[in-house]
């Protein structure tokens, strides 16, 4: 049931970046009792896995040399962006935590506190490899000591990443808005993961 609930959740949230999935639309039209059977049948060829498994598989990428961006939207549909300052993943139960600087993201945090829904993009320069994770039930917590160490490590990773794009360490710190006046941790339950590397497969959910 966990695998099928993921499929349905991703449909409810709408197809992500990438071509819309005719197959998913067919599944969506089935009666509820038949959904599990259909999804599992199709999943058998593609090995539908639990969110815990998916996160575990993507953990190296997510916690690697990536650039983080998060988005929220208010109740009028106005979106806001925040850049991340680091992230960590827990797989059982599946939870993703993204750090952001409070001073740069006040509107973003106010919207998130109201909606608790978030989308996070994990991108790797320079070839645009990226994943997007959508989540809900997002809690906003003060960053702990471990998070500060995570943010310092992320800064070093970003210096390498942005160095590939020609930005020096000092400018990377400007980009991040360092030094941080305060870090907060955004902890959410992932509901869908999407592959976003440009191309015909962009936006396909990982299943």
């Amino acid at each position: 049931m966990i695998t099928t609930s993921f499929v349905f959740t991703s449909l409810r949230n709408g197809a992500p970046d990438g071509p819309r999935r005719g197959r998913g639309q067919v599944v969506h039209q089935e009666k509820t009792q038949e959904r599990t059977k259909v999804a599992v049948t199709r999943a058998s060829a593609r090995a539908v896995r639990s969110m815990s498994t998916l996160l575990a598989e993507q953990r190296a990428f997510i916690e690697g040399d990536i650039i983080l961006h998060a988005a929220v939207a208010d109740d009028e549909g106005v979106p806001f962006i925040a850049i991340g300052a680091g992230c960590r993943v827990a797989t059982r139960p599946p939870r993703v935590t993204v750090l952001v600087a409070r001073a740069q993201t006040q509107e973003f945090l106010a919207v998130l506190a109201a909606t608790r829904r978030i989308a996070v993009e994990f991108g790797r320069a320079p070839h645009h490899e990226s994943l997007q994770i959508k989540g809900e039930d997002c809690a906003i917590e003060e960053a702990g000591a471990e998070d500060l160490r995570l943010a310092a490590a992320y800064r070093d990773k970003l210096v390498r990443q942005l160095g590939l794009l020609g930005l020096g360490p000092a400018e990377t710190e400007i980009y991040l808005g360092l030094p941080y006046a305060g870090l907060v941790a955004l902890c959410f339950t992932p509901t869908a993961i999407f592959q976003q590397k440009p191309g015909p497969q962009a936006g396909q959910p990982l299943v």
Partner: protein
Amino acid sequence: MSAVDLTPLRDYLDGGFVAVLATAAADGTPNVSVISDVRYVDERHVALSFQFFNKTHANVRENPRACLQLTHPVTGARQHLALRYLRTETEGPLFEAMKAKLAGIASHVGMTRVFRLRGADVYEVLALRQVVGPSQRCARSEVLLAGLRDTLAALRASDDVEALVDATLAALHERLGYSHCMLLSADAARERVFAVGSAGYPHSGVGAEIAYGAGVIGVAARERTPIRITHMTNEYRYGTVIREQFVATDSSLDLEREIPMPGLAESRSQLAMPIAAAGKLIGVIYLESPLDAHFTHADEEACGIVADSFAARWQILSAEDDEDTDAQDARVDALPRGTPLRVAHDAHDHSVFIDREYLIKGVAGAVLWRMLSDHATLGRSEFTNRELRRDEKLGLPDFADNLEARLVLLQRRLAERDVGVHLEKIGRGRHRLRLSRPLELEQSS
């Protein structure tokens, strides 16, 4: 977020950083993705590359609001732009320019087969917010280049001399950002330039005259060279100083017959650019500012380009205004009723007074008197440029004597005074006199 002007942010659109776009579905689910190409359309619009039928594409059609993050490729500063999706262009210059750029990006990153532009999504920029980093100051030359392109387009689109004058002043004021500017036309016979329009002043000053050699405008006119002054100098101040120079150089001058220059009381930077064509002076563009050292070499170059374009367009329009204008309207208008307008003409300098108030002098005064006289004696209201040029009493020596500018000046002075005499352009090289009161003409010598 601050007022929208994307011009200083164009550097953000060059370089290796991808832009990040956040959108939201109709149900409020956020989406975040990277955008290969963001193109500056104008100071309030951007176009984003649309390559795949993806969630972003679907979202903005359901909900047009979006947020775009741009990163400066050198400083690392970040800007957030609040956007509203307007339309998708799939052909035309914007689309082709983005398609060509995307092809270059695709080739560079080895994704030629993957990157294909389906459309240029055009967004209105609702607001800008700098998130982190040093604030971006746009180089003055950047602003000027962007403004010049629009300015020259506006000049080309002008279909008569009056529109050309208005378009030039509007462009100098609004697109090139000059707070105080004036356009003056040359009267070669009297060695003076007279204001045909201005922008940024409480009073237009239309009709104000400057003698060749007086102040920066007069020196620019006499020497046919740009004059740029970066600090306040009494030597070149207008206002009372100029009036003193008039009196000193021409004892016959009657200050009651002068229209005051609209210039700043404390002008700290000045730039006067002659407008010339075929070796003859057409006029002068004058800019001034209450700030020290406000005009740079770049401003001088930009102003020179505007002057050259003005001259080229002026020549075409002036020639057109002389064509095909032999036909004269023989219609006799019904005479207006009411208290008569007392119009006096001084043949010495062609000064015209309406109800004892000075209106205008020189060729413009002579033209008005000729029109009013014809109206009173022959009942005519419509006049052609060609007949005015052929009238020896008006003293128009040749084609280059800016008849159209004088008519624009006359038209504006009458409109400003609004005493019951108006002149309107009714076609190429044709003007119509409109009176709301009967005339009582008085000639003096």
